[in-house]
């Protein structure tokens, strides 16, 4: 850190903060804090200094269990009303529209049955979704990794017919929950064409573990991927992906994702060719119960 202490970026950031912060309202803010602290009731039990989802007490687990049950029921309902494959909202709406004529009386109770908006989510994200059987096979693979390596496996990346994985000597923290992700590069040759999958990778990893996979034969790929859970369903990620070959592509991005929702994270147009990167992230927490395992 020493060499960074006075580098130009550090100096610039510190100068920015010094100029951005007001310096004269300490007393006003102090008074507000003290007044609010005096008005609020004292807590009955000591506040937790660093809440961690996996360290919550029974109450939170019960709440999580109830939420999981609701999710499982919702997912089961979705399965029952679809063909068994997870669909993005756009496709669900299309199916719902098809059902309108058959069950008009139920439409009032289904607020999500709306005409597809022109600016709605792109339908091509459906190409990235994992079917329930495929997802179950992936989670089975994760169980087998756990069985073989315990908490020592860090990540596994599957790209075409190549697999790369990392196993460490030391156990990973039990707080580092397993996650599955699919990164797909979609392409089409013109605005009238359908998107097709140009390249796809499947990743099993854990929270806060850096995935660094390199595949050098054929179309070379380099992947760096890192995920952190903001809450039960919201994740922040950082992704660097380089695909070399006839159509080389380089992606470097970070952002926030909702688990289970395929999200377009990158797009580029080269002449008539259009490329899109779509990322789907799934948390094991949301599919932990036997009933819900097949449904996410």
């Amino acid at each position, binding site marked *: *850190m020493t060499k960074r202490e006075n580098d130009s*970026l550090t100096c610039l950031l510190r100068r*920015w903060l010094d100029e951005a912060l007001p310096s004269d309202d300490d007393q006003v803010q102090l008074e507000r804090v003290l007044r609010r*602290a005096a008005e609020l009731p004292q807590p009955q039990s000591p506040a937790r*200094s660093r809440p961690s989802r996996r360290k919550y007490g029974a109450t939170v687990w019960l709440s999580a269990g109830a939420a999981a049950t609701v999710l499982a029921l919702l997912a089961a309902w979705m399965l029952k009303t679809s063909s068994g494959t997870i669909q993005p909202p756009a496709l669900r709406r299309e199916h719902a529209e098809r059902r309108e004529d058959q069950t008009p009386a139920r439409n009032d109770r289904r607020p999500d049955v709306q005409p597809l908006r022109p600016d709605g989510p792109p339908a091509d994200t459906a190409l990235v979704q994992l079917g329930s059987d495929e997802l179950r096979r992936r989670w089975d693979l994760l169980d087998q990794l756990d069985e073989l390596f315990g908490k020592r496996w860090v990540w596994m990346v599957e790209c075409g017919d190549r697999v790369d994985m990392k196993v460490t000597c030391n156990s990973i923290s039990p707080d580092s929950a397993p996650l599955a992700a699919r990164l797909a590069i979609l392409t089409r040759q013109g605005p009238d064409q359908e998107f097709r999958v140009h390249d796809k990778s499947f990743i099993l990893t854990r929270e806060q573990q850096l995935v660094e996979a390199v595949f050098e034969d054929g179309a070379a790929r380099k992947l760096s991927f890192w995920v952190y859970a903001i809450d039960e369903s919201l994740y922040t990620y950082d992704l660097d992906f380089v695909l070399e070959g006839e159509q080389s592509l380089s992606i470097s991005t970070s952002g926030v994702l909702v688990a289970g929702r395929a999200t377009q994270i990158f797009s580029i147009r080269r002449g008539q060719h259009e490329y899109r990167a779509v990322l789907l992230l799934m948390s094991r927490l949301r599919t932990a119960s036997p009933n819900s395992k097949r449904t996410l």
Partner: protein
Amino acid sequence: MPATKWFGHMTDEELVAAYLASEDREILETLIRRNLGRVRRLVYPMVLNHADADDVVQEVLVRVALGLRAFRREASFSTWLGHVAMNTIYQFLARRNRGPRPGLCDLRRLQAHAATQPENIVTGKELDAAVTRALSMLAPKLRAAIVWTTFDGASPAEVAEIEGCTRATVYWRIHQARKALKQALRDWLC
């Protein structure tokens, strides 16, 4: 202020112990006054908005004031305050992020956008706009790594303790954040 004169020589931990023993409002005032600037330097670069920063700073300090009995002295008061501040900030950001936020990922587009905004050019606040936008493009954890190490002066080991992750993760976050910031602010760097 009289409180500062009386208690100014005491450490934060000593102030907490004295406050818990006496519940003397002046001691609490000294403790909060002493840490107000630090909390503000943690909060503002994370939320990047003065109105939100004021609310979050207050929330943090109220939580600290009300939660002093939970301070178990296993870590320093500074680290505990950091926990409370970051938890409050993350909760706030998670709430705010549930709504749509434009262009979370596209650094280059937003940097170009910020640099060409007429109000920024006219008012001479291009640097403020550029840094604000560059920081806002970082994922919260990456931004926090920069906030801790650059603005708070914490070491990666301290950040790892506060953030509840490994030191390697902290180093990686700092590296990623600095890489993105250098790219976004390249026109401002020598």
